[in-house]
């Protein structure tokens, strides 16, 4: 189950990781080996087995529609890399 350099670059794009060339090389090898190992789940025929996404079979955990106090501004922005007034500032998106 090999993975190509192009696939690594595509996945890095999806995951928003600006990998160095060295990282791309290394990950292409490492992921290939890991996928080889984990790919063995495909060996099993489980067509009639339902998937489990949760170890407990809980349902309907809801809360009532009652407002609670939000955070004070100093907490909202306590860790903000860049703040402008009461807004989070980020580089241009367009």
């Amino acid at each position, binding site marked *: 189950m090999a993975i190509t350099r192009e696939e690594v670059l595509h996945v890095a794009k*999806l995951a928003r990781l600006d990998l160095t060339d060295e990282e791309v090389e290394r990950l292409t090898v490492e992921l290939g080996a890991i996928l080889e190992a984990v790919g063995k789940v495909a060996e099993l025929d489980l067509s009639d087995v339902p998937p489990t996404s949760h170890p407990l079979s809980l349902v*309907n955990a*809801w809360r009532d529609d009652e*407002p609670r106090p939000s*955070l004070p501004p100093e907490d909202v922005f306590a860790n903000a890399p860049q703040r402008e007034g*009461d807004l989070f500032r980020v*580089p*241009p*998106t367009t």
Partner: protein
Amino acid sequence: MTTWQPVIGLEIHVQLKTRTKMFCSCAAGFGGGENMQTCPVCLGFPGALPVPNRQAIEWTIRLGLALGCDIAPRAVFARKNYFYPDLPKGYQVSQYDLPSCVDGRLVVPSADGDREISIVRAHLEEDAAKTTHVGGRTGRIGGAEHSLVDFNRGGTPLVEIVTGPDVHSAEEARRFLQLLRQTIVELGISDAAMEKGTLRVDANVSVRPEGSTELRTRCELKNMNSFRFVAQGIDAEVARQVAVYEAGGEVVQQTYDFDAGSGALTARRSKEEADDYRYFPEPDLVPVEPPAELVERLRAELPELPAARIRRLEAQLDLDRATVLVTGGLDRLYEETVAAGADRVDAANLIANRLAGRDGAAVDARELARLVQARDRIPRAALDEALAQVTEPGFSADPYLAQEAVSDTAELGPLVDRLLEANPGQVAAYRGGKEGLLGFFVGQVMKETDGKANARVVSELVREKLSAGT
């Protein structure tokens, strides 16, 4: 030469008017200062976890039932993964392959019989935050280009409604949306106001040769923030696609933004890499399995829906008036006014034409009925004044009914004669067959008498004098 049939599917996002957000207890809705309605959950702080809002789940089911949907015995929230500054967790929580409501329909009464628009699904999701782009072209001195994020709206519950490709004209889309909007408003789950962004509509548009059943490449229209713009956008896109095909070209899948100013469509820059949202079941949440009692309770609580009322009124009035009254939320007032003794057609006309957009619930039908009955007798100015005041608490028609319009032909006759002499051109035109000019003459008389003349008497007078002359 082919005639082309528009094929339109609509995606409608409805912001629920719950008191709190979808997954946290921050107050939802407008009002708070920038980022003042936020907490660790809706800011996506490390370790924060979502807890679903019961009201939002019940209202989604309520809407699904009103749209004749099957309510899923098991609905599952999933994560839709992508990066954007308005998405604090790096994913949007949304029902995906197991939505709460599926396979419904909204029947839109229309001239050529009932039109059934299928509802493929209605699912619950969380809204994104608000990002504004500043600097750069707006040229603030020293203002570097950048974006600013306000997370107040982030996490507000949204219901996304997806129709089948069953809509075949801009007009049909408008009628469908009006009816859907009124239904949502009457369910009390959202104010569904496009101008406020609590109702958002995207349209998927394609065309095909009349008679064929194929589905050709479709384009998506976004940012149409009024029903009128939706209709304009669809017409423009249909025309564009028809032109492309007639020129022997092919339509390419594209997303267009509608510009209200120019009424033009501008293509969006397509992203470098194709979307791959990597949906998977949200592991921080458990499935929604609404108990049968809950669903039945919600079904029992459904009010009589607008579509049914349009059909009921259609029997007494024509479809258009019935539709305007119902989708304007004025049909109850109409029925009470008729019950209070007013003539059906007179009441329908007056309410549909003169009270559109007003709050029918604030009107005392008995007083309105008196106005309807007297509307020819009293001066137009008095009627206008009365209708302006009619929604005021404790409104009484008495002072307006006291005013008598001038109906005395002896008094009005000379006035009409003077007017006809003063406008020989229009007189000739009228006699030449332009009967529409009648209104012009009547209007002139009303102006001369500052609305005190009896419009009906005046128009009879004018008509007889004009025909007499020939």
